[in-house]
């Protein structure tokens, strides 16, 4: 159980890092891109083109590309998949997905470090929250594929790894919810069970076995705090 939540936190940390990479693609940085195609470099907040002097010329930073943008040679922007440029507005799912994954990571950390981890309600909430996180992560990858098809660069392919990682975390959170629910039930049952048990010291049983018959033994009710060891009681009856 402890191990599982550690794995979840570890996987979610990696996923968060994976999801940060698309956010720092061109034009935020000059070295990373979601896709590169015919001297064009596409990022989350814009796109760049490499001019004749090997220098990158980028658009303004905003979500979604503009269909009126032209490159250095005067050509209108074209996406690798022949998609309409307006579809690039769907890239907005990347920051939303990052926000969801970060929140899920915070929830997982809370479960790990606080006693809330033993609460089935908290785990249910986290597991439920992991569902839209997974969907958004998957949507990010699908949007990237739709826009850039196989021309994706490695920050784009990282979204596939992030999706698989979130799917694993999601499964583990649901398993943890089951485990905690069963544990809670078992602890309740064992507490109720212990309360209902009447305990007898072994010495009394031995003495009463020698002195009295079994019907009298049943009527004896002397409560003690310690539990009986099964082998001792067994030996007592053999005697």
């Amino acid at each position, binding site marked *: 159980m402890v191990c599982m939540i550690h794995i979840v936190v570890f996987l979610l940390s990696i996923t968060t890092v994976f999801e940060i990479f698309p956010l720092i693609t061109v034009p935020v940085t000059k070295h990373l891109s979601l896709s590169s195609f015919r001297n064009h470099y596409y990022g989350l907040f814009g796109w760049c083109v490499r001019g004749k002097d090997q220098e990158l010329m980028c658009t303004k930073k905003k979500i979604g590309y503009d269909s009126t943008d032209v490159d250095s040679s005067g050509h209108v922007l074209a996406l690798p998949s022949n998609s309409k440029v307006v579809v690039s507005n769907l890239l907005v799912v990347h920051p939303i997905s990052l926000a969801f994954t970060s929140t899920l990571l915070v929830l997982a950390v809370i479960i790990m470090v606080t006693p809330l981890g033993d609460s089935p309600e908290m785990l249910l909430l986290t597991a439920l929250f992991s569902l839209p996180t997974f969907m958004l992560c998957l949507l990010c990858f699908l949007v990237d594929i*739709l826009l850039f098809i196989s021309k994706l660069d490695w920050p784009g392919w990282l979204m596939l790894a992030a999706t698989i990682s979130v799917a694993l975390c999601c499964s583990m959170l649901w398993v943890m919810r089951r485990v905690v629910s069963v544990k809670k039930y078992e602890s309740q049952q064992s507490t109720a069970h212990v309360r209902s048990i009447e305990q007898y010291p072994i010495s009394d049983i031995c003495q009463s076995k020698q002195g009295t018959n079994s019907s009298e033994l049943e009527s004896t009710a002397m409560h003690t705090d310690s539990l009986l060891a099964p082998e001792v009681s067994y030996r007592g009856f053999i005697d």
Partner: protein
Amino acid sequence: MASLVSNNLWRHGPGSNTYNSCRPMELGSGVLVGLPFFGDSALFADDITFRSYCCETVPVYISTALKTTSPYRYLDEVVKDWQTFIHIGDYVGGSSQYAVYAVILCMTSNFVITVFLTVICCINISGRAYKRILQLLRIASFIASLNLTIFIIKVLRKLEREHNKYGIVRAHSIIHLFSDDMAFVVLDFLATLMFQFCQVGIVIRLFQRAQEKRIIFFVGVVLVMTANILWVIPPFSNHANGHKKNWQILRPFVYLFRIAIATSYASIVIYHIWQKKKLWFKFNQMGLLTLLTFLVLLLLPGFFLADVANLWISDLGDVFNTTCYVTSTVITWEWLDRLNVLERKEEAQSILGRPIFEEEQQDYRFAKYALRVQNALTRRESHETLNRIDTSNSSEICDLQTISRYDPEDQASEGRSIDQIHFNDKGSYKELAVKKLSSARDKILYFTDQIVQKSVGHNNNSGSSKNKETKRRKAMVRKRLGLDRPGVYIYSTKEVVFNSDQDDEDEEDDSDNQDEDGGSKTLTSNDTSHC
């Protein structure tokens, strides 16, 4: 062309290539041969103007060609346009993927698969368990089959009409129908919606815990409703001209959303298939069916990738879409049915029966069930002994209602007898509000359970008995014992017949006294029932 562009969800429409041979070309003077109405004679003309036979600015080519050894040759412009035509990959070009034969083959094969699975769904799949969802599945399959039947008839009639009128058969006139034919669009939408609900039902079947079933039901219904409401918005938004650009993004988003839902469904079922790997080869055809289920589950995400990669099926996705939904639902359903049979067999052979989960214990469900059965049996006995005449149904129903109202956890009923009269004692506003909220929550959960368990849960009605009276009595007994409830069922009822030692001795004594009267007395009715 405008309708073609709006037809596509995210991709630019087919490019408007210019073909020079579609414009009149001045050829000068020459001899014309093989002209209509002139027979075999030739005709000399001064100013000859030639234009290719074109349809919507695209040349129409016949399926015969001149051999290279022929003394005649095509015009240079015609040869140039032909080269342009065959190098265009979309459906208005000359790509062989969009030849009319390939498109018709695609549609008819989808039609055959859909109808075949509809027949299987109606005949082969048992209707005893999961009755409501199965009914929905049958209706959805029937609508999908009907839709494709109507669509194929319309396509063939359109092709015939065009051939008679213009002498050509075009594939892209079929593509027009996908978006222009409102009957196809509406029926396809309805079928897809129903299939998605069936998929929610299938996922509910995979899980055994009541709370998980509830969560899946809520999440699944919300996802399906959201996807389908968003799907129908863009066609209506076309009327709002000012915001058309804003709505353009919605259609591809919902398309991706549907793919994401289908991928999630496939992931969940495949995970379940992996969990049940021990049962793959326990049945003759189970291995094959498992493989088939695995493949059809990946159809929808696979077709998305093929569509995006522009391999072949772009713009024909609607036909494949329906078939993908039919196959991924019906075949998975069949696989689950067979898996259930195998699991039931294993559970019946084991000592413990079906697994029991902690949540079933938490609400005293088994205690309630035992109490219900006990009360029903004792009351029946008392009814029979005290009041043999008055055995009306209303009293029994009243009893059952009284029992069902009795809740061990209910604080108000604690310490009270169910036969006493109580006056309403009003609590504080806070208690009242909490009570109202909890009752509202209980009602929502009750209706969810009713939907989940009655439609997706087991339905134990047997359709074999023709006698209505027997059927009614059986149903009454089942209801009294609580067997009409989901999750409670008898695995097997065996009648054990054996001769006891005492019977043998009696028999021996009897055989001494009576020569040929040695019938054995039987002790009967030993049953094994689990709940």
